[in-house]
């Protein structure tokens, strides 16, 4: 790699990211987001069945029938005194901010009746459910994230003071926001249900991306001391180049694990685990991309503009 010069292409990297994020925003305004029942609340439909039925299949069938995100579970009421009187129910939680119309309700019940062994004359119950992940959980989560960000800014500013830590910490956080937005794009474009699975995925991605950025910044920090005579451009280029093998190896190993999970989930038709593994893969790639092409480059721009200003004022 003779002419390993990322700085030359800086603008292209920013444009690629901006386009992806813009697509996400556009789709957000067209489609909105598909909130899962844990966030939006919705309607719970209980249908009595003969024996236990295939819940994931029911989920898929119902989602297709009414075009709303659903969670299916089977439920069983044991009567300890009489084993034969066990009551089996299919439980469908359908996400919606408004109550389902009668028409939608009938569609769901008819679809289930057509496809599964529903008990004739059995019990059907419809109730409303409030969000289980309410305002409080989200508010707490947001507060926690803000406080964690401030602490990370303080820590990175202190530890990376030799490479102007404040610039380093802010650009690292920008990279995190970038990764979240990229994953968000995936959710708005493919209308994946936004629920507890999303929270798990996003938190994992944030951690991964932060780790990745810190490792590269460490190299820049070290090279800033070793390469006193070089320009900032050279330092950043060299640092990224030196850690390239590690970046590729780590990314490949983690992607391998998550891809394994995705494949197993896909083969066994577990949509929820697919919905977890897919954003992780996208997020991990975004995390590596943002470290090399966004965080490091932004840091470089920041430093150069500060130096220019200092020169002028001097």
């Amino acid at each position, binding site marked *: 790699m003779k002419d390993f010069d990322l700085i030359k292409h800086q603008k292209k990297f920013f444009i690629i990211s901006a386009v992806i994020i813009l697509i996400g925003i556009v789709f957000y305004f067209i489609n909105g987001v598909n909130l899962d029942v844990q966030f939006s609340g919705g309607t719970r439909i209980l249908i009595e069945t003969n024996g236990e039925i295939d*819940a994931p299949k029911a989920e898929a069938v119902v989602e297709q029938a009414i075009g709303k995100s659903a969670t299916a*579970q089977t439920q069983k009421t044991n009567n300890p005194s009489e084993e034969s009187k066990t009551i089996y129910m299919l439980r469908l939680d359908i996400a919606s901010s408004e109550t389902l119309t009668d028409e939608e309700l009938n569609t769901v019940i008819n679809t289930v009746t057509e496809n599964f062994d529903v008990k004739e004359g059995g019990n059907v119950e419809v109730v409303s459910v*409030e969000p289980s992940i309410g305002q409080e*959980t989200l508010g*707490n989560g947001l507060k*926690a994230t803000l406080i964690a960000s401030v602490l990370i800014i303080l820590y990175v500013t202190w530890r990376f003071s030799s490479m102007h830590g404040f610039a380093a910490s802010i650009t690292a956080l920008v990279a995190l926001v970038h990764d979240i937005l990229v994953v968000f794009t995936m959710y708005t474009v493919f209308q994946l249900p936004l629920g507890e699975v999303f929270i798990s995925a996003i938190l994992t991605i944030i951690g991964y991306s932060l780790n990745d950025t810190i490792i590269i910044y460490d190299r820049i920090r070290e090279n800033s001391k070793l390469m006193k005579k070089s320009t900032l451009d050279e330092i950043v280029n060299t640092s990224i180049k030196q850690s390239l093998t590690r970046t590729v190896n780590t990314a490949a190993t983690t992607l391998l694990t*998550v891809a394994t999970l995705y494949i197993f989930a896909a083969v066994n038709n*577990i949509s929820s685990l697919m919905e977890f593994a897919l954003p992780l893969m996208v997020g991990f790639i975004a995390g590596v991309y943002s470290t090399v092409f966004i965080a490091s480059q932004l840091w470089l721009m920041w430093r150069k503009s500060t130096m220019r200003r200092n020169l002028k004022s001097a």
Partner: protein
Amino acid sequence: MRKNSVWKLFVVILVIAVFAFLAGNELKKDNVRTGIDIRGGVSAILEPDIAEGSLTDEEITKGLQSAKVILDKRLESRQIYDKSVTIDAVNKRITVEIPWAPGETNFNPQETISELGKTALLTFQEVDTDKIDAKGDFLPTGRIVLQGTQVKDANPGRDPKTNEWVVLLDLDPSGSEAFAEATGRLVGQYIAIFMDDEFISAPRVSQRIEGGSAVITGQADAVEAGQLASTIRSGSLPFRLVATKVDSISPQLGQGAMNVAVTAGIVGFILVCLFMLILYRLPGLLADIGLFALAVLTILSVAWTGISITLPGIGGIILAVGMGVDANCVIFERIKEELRDGKTLRASVDQGFHRAFAAVVDSNVTTMITAVVLYALGSGPIKGFAMTLAIGVAISFVTAVTATKIMLQSVTSVEIAKNKWLYGVK
């Protein structure tokens, strides 16, 4: 020349083997708890136990909302993060869903659920010496000296004199004042402590107690004291909730979710190990041993702390394993760089670890900061994620850095292990 220290390698492997044996035991006993999303659990409908017409609809709705917050807290104080507490505003009731306890498949969860529905109103009451029940315990008189709402904090502890388990209460200003006044007035008499009218203990007042602290004695062990303390901390419900229906439910993630997650986990783990072995040869093999230790210790800590593995938890574990692998990649690449610079093997290994150390520490510390803050302030799935992440990162630092370092330094003292090919360098 370094002394032959190959014995260190065997010590590390022996230690890992012991942990592996322990972990295997925990798995056999089914002590690793998996969450409601993966394994299913119990769903109960709780209805407020109030007299018809005693509260308006609005009051009930408000009561249910504050009940949800308290139920969430109560469950979290028992390490159950994967629960869902939802309000059914139309039918005026609450649905609580909790995972099976470890080892349970088809038990009667009535006990846990009815425990949960208790109002948990703590009261300190004056007693009438002639009002006692068959067991000789005092009956509640309704002359309340102090109640749960006046308690700022409650913690389990031990009485230094009797060595008995107690719950230490920290009272708020109004509580301290009331308690000081009452203890001053009732010197030589008893004050009985009740939880929902259930008698707990009745200490005799020996002197006026100032300073805003009170003690509940008579706890059988640490567990009982801890549970009582956490129940008091969580606050009391506006009304008693009774379970009207208890069902078992299948996993939210789908019936086969657990098998798929476990199989994918094992296959993914093997793939990562192979990958590390091919990429880094001898150090890769040692990193694999470290990864095995990480897996074993994660299983043990999950079993011992009693937390349950949920999807957010799996996210935390994936991240911890990823960071462990990354730490190894960073270190081994550094060693290769040093070797290419023509340094000796021993110097390269030492330098590699030394120069990679700052990077690994910084990335682990930032992750730990995130995990601790999310644990302290988050709730529900966020807390579950933070818990496994914190545990995982702490373990992965030890296995990927410390254990691998000892093993690698020990191996490089052996003559046959000095071939540079083994380190991926020509």
